[in-house]
């Protein structure tokens, strides 16, 4: 059991390592939506790709991109390290990955993390519109 927990923690570590790109994948109404937040000193963007369609891209202020990446990070921590005691399984609600790291799955059984992720997607949708 201990080994399992350790390996799980290590798998998260790469993804949380000072990200400048966050990728959020969620399936809504049967269509996969992929949001990407990229932040660097010269150009920060949010993009949304729905299914096979061309991505919508919006340039945003680097501070805003940083804020969104921070929120994605908080949801990831909530999901990975504060699971409800009664969470036995994981039905995927959303996937969040940082840079090229392994994605973290936000499970529907973790209703607190899912609730925050739900509000977060709404904010991303508003931002990319």
């Amino acid at each position, binding site marked *: 059991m201990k080994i399992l927990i350790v390996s799980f923690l*290590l798998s998260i570590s790469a993804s949380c*390592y*000072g*990200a400048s790109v966050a990728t959020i994948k969620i399936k809504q109404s049967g269509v996969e939506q992929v949001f990407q937040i990229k932040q660097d000193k010269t150009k920060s963007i949010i993009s949304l790709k729905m299914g096979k369609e061309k991505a919508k891209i919006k340039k945003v202020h680097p501070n805003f991109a940083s804020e969104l990446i921070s929120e994605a990070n908080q949801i990831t921590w909530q999901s990975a390290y504060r699971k409800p005691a009664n969470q036995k399984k994981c039905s995927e609600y959303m996937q969040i990955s940082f840079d090229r790291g392994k994605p973290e799955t936000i499970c529907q059984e973790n209703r607190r993390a899912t609730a*925050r992720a739900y509000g977060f997607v*709404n904010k991303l949708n508003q931002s990319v519109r």
Partner: protein
Amino acid sequence: MKFYQTFLLLIAFQFSISAQAANIDACENLFSASCLGSDGKNKFPNKFQENKDLSVKIISDARDKTARDLGFKNFDEALKTELKNKGFEVKEPPDEKAWKVLKGEADLSGGYDMNEGKKLFADISNCEDKLGPIKNYSSYGKTDLAEVQKQVAQAEKIFKDLDNKLIQIYSKNISDFVTKQIGDKCRNLKSNPENYNAYDNPEAALKCKDFESIRQQAVRIFRLEGTPEYQEQAEKFVKDNLLGELKYSSYSGGTPAQNVSTSAGGLILPQKSELEMARNNYDRLTKKSYSYCNGFGRAMNEAGKKVADDFMIEINTSKTTVDAVLGSFYSEENRKTTESIVSSAKSEIQGMVKDFVGDREKRNKIINSYDSMKYQWMDLPSESFYKKGPRGNLILDENKAITSFNSSFASDPFGAFSDPKMTFFTTLNANYMPSIEVGALSFEKRVAIMPSFLIGAKENPFYLQSVIAHEVGHHIGPKLSRLNGFDLSGEYKELLACYKGNKSIHLQTKQDDETIADYISSEYLAIEIGKLPVDQREQALKSSMEAFCHFDAMGNQMQSLNCTESHPENSLRVSGIYGANPNLRKVVGCEGDSSQFASCGIKDIKLPKISEKKPSRNKPSRGRQ
């Protein structure tokens, strides 16, 4: 092909919205007649926002109630107090928009405000003022050692105070501290290997080599959040790991200790004079002062938002808030209104199925499956769903949360109230979900009308009819009927071909299910509106279309032509589907087709006998398709 489709769609769209003169005939252009005023502009320009504002007010009033229970004047005062207690003093008065965005009472319309943090938190705007004296003094050319040393000491004191504040800030947001403050610096060091073990970066290099163990320490402390031991451990952790003083971009200064070294060749380097070292130190602090407040502001803004979010979750999930919010949105009156529409829509659609589905077995399967379709309603959680919160009041218990295979939380109060901004209650939408089995869990087919839609019911119950019938109609859509075990794609073949035609809405691929749901809804409206006195029918039909006008006002679908949405454009939905339904046209007294859209319908679906008929007043018929 795509260009051709877009072109045809554009023509249809132009036709649909061009007839904007006064007194538009609903038979000719239902969208303009329902949504546009005599000036050709939307009759409901603010309706979408007004609806959202109403929802926000319900939430805000409920939070005020809970705050009063906890001994505060209102929620604003409670939130400010919580922020202040955690080290985040809110400016008085706070910037109205930034404050509303923080509480989730306003969205980001108008764009992100890069000065939002400065407008909200006093310490962010004070940061630059505090560093002003450092920037204003220059040690260049100064010869008085005591003076320069005094300036260095003063600057260091200023930074020490700010760093102490920074430690307090980061201790409230450990995940951000590890990821951004340490992780980003380590990433930069890694991407610049020449600096990784750089002479002037020994501490940073060491920390970064040990990053994984630092992160795991952070996880351990993160799990303590909410316990009495958290704060002390978090502050100590941040203090031990704050890399604010470390430089991953080299600077040309140096501490006295560094200046008594030898070069690689073993030559003794001349020791720098004390004055030169003091001046170098001052230069280093000046350089630091130029970027310090950006990082400080970012950390404070993000930690402040986290503290606010955590507090809002606590207030949102308290029994007082839950009771007040559910009492307003999910009132008994709203339940009666919507349940009766759902029940009537199910029954009338079952009747339609008898008309147009020839296969008896399939027909019976559909009719039976409608009997078991649920209408999702969020009931008040029982006492057992609550636990005692840290302030002594009852809050929803996470361990009693209901997992729902749906992102909308329609059946899960814990989820709906655990989003700090309570987005579920301010989203204007409705949905249908087929039966789904996930592992051992199975979820019943159901329709749900989201709360924000429910509050519009009092003002105009007609528009709920079209929305609810659309969702109930999804159950027998082309793809969904296949999923539900009674494939009706053959039954819709002719109808869909009609919608694809040049004289109709130029139906795009992937829009079949939404279009059929609209069509079923239009058939339902034909039956319901046909029950009204003749002189009330046209107005009832226009009122039924109001929801489409709200979305138009939102500027979401109407302002850009989009061939890829699962829903056709609103004007096409209203004029080309509802306005072109032969039965609906008949009950409101329209004769023949409109000049813009050919009528499309399933000829086997018959209207109940209409006792009265509106006088004929339209162009000669072009015949039913």
